[in-house]
C-alpha cells in the first residue's frame, strides 16, 4: 500500500522543488535597520532648477527600497507622520504638487526623488536631510514612487483612514514617458 503513496510523494517533492526554484521573493523581505549598503555612490542633489537636471547616477539602494513592500509601507507611514499630507494631500496635491500624476519637476527616478526630499526644493519643499535618517528618506522616496505608479503599491488598496482621494488602485497614473525623465509642464506656483 505504501507503493500507492509513492506517486503522491513524488508529485509533492516535485512541486516543492519547482517552487523553490522560483527563488526568494525580494518584495516580501523585511530587514530591519541596515538592509541597504550604508555607503552607496553619493547622490548628487544640487539641481535647484525645474527639470530633470543633471543625470543622477543610479544608486543600488534605490532598487532595494523600491522592491520591498515593507519599506514602501514604512514610507507611507512616514509620509503621514511627517505630515507630507499637509501639502501633498495623500498624493493628490494641494499646496504642494500632486504625486500621482505624471508631472515630475525634479525628475521621477528614485534617486531624484531622494534628492528632492533630502535637499528640499524652492517654493516650499523643505529639506529633510538630517531631520530624517537616510533610510527614512529612501523609504519615503520609494513610497512616492509607488504613488506615482512606477512601482507596485505596498498593498494594493487603501489606508485605514477617511477616504479623501480616490483609492490608489482606482487612479491609473499615465505611464511616465521615460523612466527618470520628466515632462515639465506648467510652472511652480
Amino acid at each position, binding site marked *: 500500500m505504501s507503493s500507492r503513496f509513492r506517486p503522491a510523494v513524488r508529485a509533492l517533492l516535485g512541486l516543492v522543488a519547482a517552487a523553490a526554484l522560483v527563488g526568494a521573493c525580494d518584495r516580501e523581505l523585511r530587514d530591519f535597520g541596515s538592509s541597504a549598503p550604508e555607503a552607496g555612490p553619493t547622490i548628487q542633489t544640487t539641481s535647484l532648477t525645474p527639470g530633470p537636471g543633471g543625470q543622477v547616477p543610479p544608486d543600488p539602494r534605490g532598487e532595494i527600497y523600491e522592491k520591498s513592500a515593507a519599506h514602501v509601507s514604512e514610507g507611507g507611514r512616514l509620509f503621514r507622520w511627517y505630515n507630507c499630507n499637509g501639502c501633498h494631500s495623500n498624493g493628490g496635491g494641494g499646496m504642494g504638487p500632486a504625486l500621482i500624476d505624471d508631472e515630475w519637476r525634479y525628475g521621477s527616478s528614485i534617486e531624484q526623488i531622494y534628492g528632492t526630499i533630502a535637499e528640499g526644493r524652492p517654493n516650499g519643499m523643505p529639506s529633510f536631510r538630517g531631520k530624517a535618517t537616510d533610510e527614512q528618506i529612501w523609504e519615503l522616496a520609494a513610497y512616492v514612487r509607488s504613488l506615482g505608479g512606477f512601482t507596485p503599491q505596498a498593498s494594493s*488598496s*487603501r489606508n485605514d483612514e477617511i*477616504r479623501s482621494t*480616490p*483609492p490608489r488602485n*482606482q487612479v491609473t497614473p499615465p505611464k511616465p514617458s521615460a523612466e527618470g525623465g520628466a515632462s515639465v509642464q506648467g510652472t511652480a506656483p
Partner: protein
Amino acid sequence: MKTRIVGDVSALPDHEFGLKSIVWWGLLGFMAIESMGFVLAIGAYLYIRGINDSWPFPPDQSPALLPGIVTTILLLASEVLNRWTARRAKAYDERGVKLGVTGMIAAGVIIIIARFFELPNLHTRWDVNAYGSVTWLLMFLHTLHIITDWADTGVMGGWLFTHKMEPTQFSEVYDNCGYWTFVVVSWLPIWALVYLAPRFM
C-alpha cells in the same frame, strides 16, 4: 465473512426525483452553504447599518428603485417558467423540457442584462465607504449565483439537444430547476435590503 441473502434490490428504479435523489441532497447541501453565505452577508449588512448613524451615506444617494423592481419582476416571471419546466421534467416530457430549458436560458440572458442596469443605479461604489462595500457585496453574491446557474443551465441545454434523453436526465433537469428557485427566492430579502433599507431603515 459468511453471508446470507435475504433480499434483492435489482427491481428498484435507477433514478428518482427530488427528495429521493442523491443529487438533490447534494444540491440541498450546497444551497445550505450558500444560504449561510447570504445570511452572514445580510448579517454583515445589518451590523454595519447598526453601527452607523445615517444610512446610506452620503445620505441623499439611495439606489434608484426602478431597475431593482424590473429585475425582481423578471426573476419572478422566470420562476413561473422554471416551475413549469420542473413539472414537464417530472412528467418525462422531452419536448416540454427542451422548450423550458431553452426558455430559461433566454430568461437568464435578459435577467443578467437587467442586472447590469441595476449596478450603476446603486449610486454608490464598493470603495466609497462601508455602505457601498456591503451593498455591492450583496449584489455581487447574488449576481454570481445568477451567472453560475445560468451557465449551468446553458451546459445542460447543450447536452439536452445533442445527447439522447434518458430517464435520469429528467431528474437532473428537475434538480437544476430547484436551484433556480433558490436563486429567485434568495433575491427577495437582498432586494429588500439593498433597495428599501436605505429608504426606510
